[in-house]
């Protein structure tokens, strides 16, 4: 089947995870004709050049779709930092989280990031929207964080509300982004490194390293 061949192609070229989501519900009128999202994830632990590699994988997806006469719109991994192109105005109309959850590759955790059961939040994402009738994977509609609230408790800026994500309630506030930003900005002034990332490293799913499913009590794994 065509969908499987695309997934195989991307896996063979190094994609950590590939999924296809039916994203019809999440689209604004400008992009409503592109109702399938190919979600491509790469394990950031594999190297420094994650973004470049993701963009190459996106390029492969584009060629694959173009050869078959389909339309596409690629949302690059660091879409918020890409400007200066005509199409970059449209990037904000679609989020990688939508692609990831609709294609069943994860849920939005209490840290506000996509959490995949095997790789936690250590993945970088790229999405390709298309009108190709690809077979969609089963979506994930609710959080799997359970009682774990390590990220909420240890977030140095107190930015996480502890609310649980669900597809039914898209507008609940999970992260107070202004608090997160203020902390990152002040850190940049100290050592020129804006990243905090504690909510990624503290997540038991992230620390799992892609080996086994998390089944232990989360408290045992706290720092």
């Amino acid at each position, binding site marked *: 089947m065509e969908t499987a061949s695309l997934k195989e192609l991307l896996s063979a070229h190094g994609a950590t995870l590939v999924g296809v989501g039916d994203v019809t519900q999440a689209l604004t009128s*400008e*992009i409503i*004709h*592109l109702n399938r999202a190919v979600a491509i994830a790469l394990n950031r632990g594999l190297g420094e050049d994650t973004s470049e590699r993701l963009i190459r994988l996106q390029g492969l997806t584009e060629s694959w779709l*173009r050869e078959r006469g389909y*339309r596409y*719109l690629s949302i690059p991994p660091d879409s918020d930092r890409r400007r200066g*192109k*005509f*199409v970059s*105005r*449209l990037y904000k109309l679609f989020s990688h989280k939508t692609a990831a959850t609709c294609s069943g590759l994860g849920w939005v955790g209490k840290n506000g990031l996509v959490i995949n059961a095997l790789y936690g939040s250590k993945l970088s994402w790229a999405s390709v929207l298309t009108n190709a009738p690809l077979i969609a994977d089963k979506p994930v509609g609710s959080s799997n964080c359970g009682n774990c609230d390590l990220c909420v408790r240890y977030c140095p800026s107190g930015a996480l509300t502890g609310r649980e994500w669900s597809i039914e309630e898209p507008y609940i506030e999970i992260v107070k982004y202004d608090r997160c930003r203020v902390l990152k900005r002040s850190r940049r002034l100290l050592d020129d490194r804006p990243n905090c990332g504690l909510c990624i490293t503290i997540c038991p799913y992230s620390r799992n390293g892609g080996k086994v499913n998390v089944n232990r009590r989360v408290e045992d794994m706290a720092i």
Partner: protein
Amino acid sequence: MPTREEVLEKLKNGVIQYDEDACKEGANEAIAIGLDANEAIFEGLVAGMEEVGRLFEAQEYFVPEILMCADALYAGLDILKPHCKQMDLGVKGAVVIGTVEGDVHDIGKNLVKMMFDVAGFTVYDLGRDVPLDQFVEEQLRTDSELVCLSAMMTTSMIGMPKVIEKIKARNPNVMIMIGGAPTSKELADKWGADGYAEDASNALKEAIKMVTFLKNLRAEKEAEKKV
């Protein structure tokens, strides 16, 4: 070595299929085989954009495709531009363009800008959310013949007549075009603007029309030369 036809076809299809790499490749090939850069732009890239306009009108293409096609066109244009000879079309000059204060919508503005870039104008793009006085200052600084004002919202559009008045007071010969959803022929007339375009898709249509006009003009001149 690819032939002239192959290169033009590659540029044209590169734009239609929003394939930036194909446009870059085609542009480099055009230079390699000594194709006239203006010909590559008009018979290749612009020919592709004309087809994109048709696809858009036929509702085959939508906004994302148009924008990606424009990006592909620029990928080729950036390479070809430095090789362009000044065209003798009776149109040359400079234009100041921007989205007025209070407004950040600039898709239409960017499409119009593309037209001027293709036509070989010097474009002073002030970007979006531009303070009104900056248009006046920039026009004076650059002595541009044309000023283009864009607004998507009625609330920001109301700044337009002030700019038009100030510019015309200093130099009545400056042509002023306004564009954006809330503008109209009537408002353009009332405020003393010289032209208007309704929205991004109309801007695109107008832009293509004007570029096609240039293309034909160029073809005529070329034909005259040969006679």
